[in-house]
């Protein structure tokens, strides 16, 4: 067996990243926005794993661990804000919070 070329792994990560990005740009519901962010962070983690395993170093996985920690923290704060958003505006629409502009 020849193994997997590193760029294949990275391309997979890039695809997931781009999908998350697209979701971030066109979703209005904040639940979906947060999920898109999770997808993007996860894809960055995947890229680290790919690089780490290609170089056969544990640092890649260590970075992944940090990413996952961040994702958890981000999710908890994001969801707290989401609950508060729903309390204030009775909607999950991120466009609702566009009172400041110009």
């Amino acid at each position, binding site marked *: *067996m*020849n*193994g*997997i*070329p*590193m760029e*294949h*792994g*990275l*391309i*997979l990560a*890039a*695809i*997931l*990243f*781009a*999908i*998350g*990005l*697209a*979701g971030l*740009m*066109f979703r*209005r*519901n904040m*639940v*979906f926005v947060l*999920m*898109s962010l*999770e*997808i993007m962070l*996860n894809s960055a*983690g*995947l890229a680290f794993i*790919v690089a*780490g*395993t*290609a*170089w*056969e170093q*544990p640092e890649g*996985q*260590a970075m*992944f*661990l940090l990413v*996952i*920690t961040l*994702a*958890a*923290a981000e*999710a*908890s*704060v994001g*969801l*707290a*804000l989401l*609950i*508060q958003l*729903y309390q204030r505006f009775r909607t999950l*629409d991120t466009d609702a919070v566009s009172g400041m502009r110009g």
Partner: protein
Amino acid sequence: MELAFYLSGLVAVLATLGVVTGTNAVHALLYLIVSLIAVAIVFFALGAPFAGALEIIVYAGAIMVLFVFVVMILNLGQGAAEQERIWLKAQTWVGPSILAAVLLGVLVITLWRGNTGLVIEGETLTAKAVGATLFGPWIIVVELAAMLLLAALVTASHVGRLPSATSGEHSGGDQ
């Protein structure tokens, strides 16, 4: 091993597409969990079983459950899915999707051209090696992670408070 990588990679992409295009939050969450598990299998295939296990336990297990809880608390009904469908009109998503596709195209071309020739053999990197790194030279980052989680915890507990005592904008009491 290659087969597992490509197959689960495909599943991950499809499931992720399902997430961002979904109209029902719970369904989307399930898609996301599928996607995360597929990514975990990718990790296994690449030879990072520790990361794969964490992906399932922390991501699919903990974070997604948090999401599910919140969606349940908010108890969005059928109207919400309908609303999503209205929001997802073509003019909303085409532009951003093209932009993302262009970015992806540039990234893929770059990745293709800058090929380093490294190949992932699938040698298993154990949790021990990861732990030795984290608790060796990286110990500061672990401590920082603790601070980060503390900050997140405080933020979430402060901001996420449900208005049990407060009844309106002008009420002063928060205790």
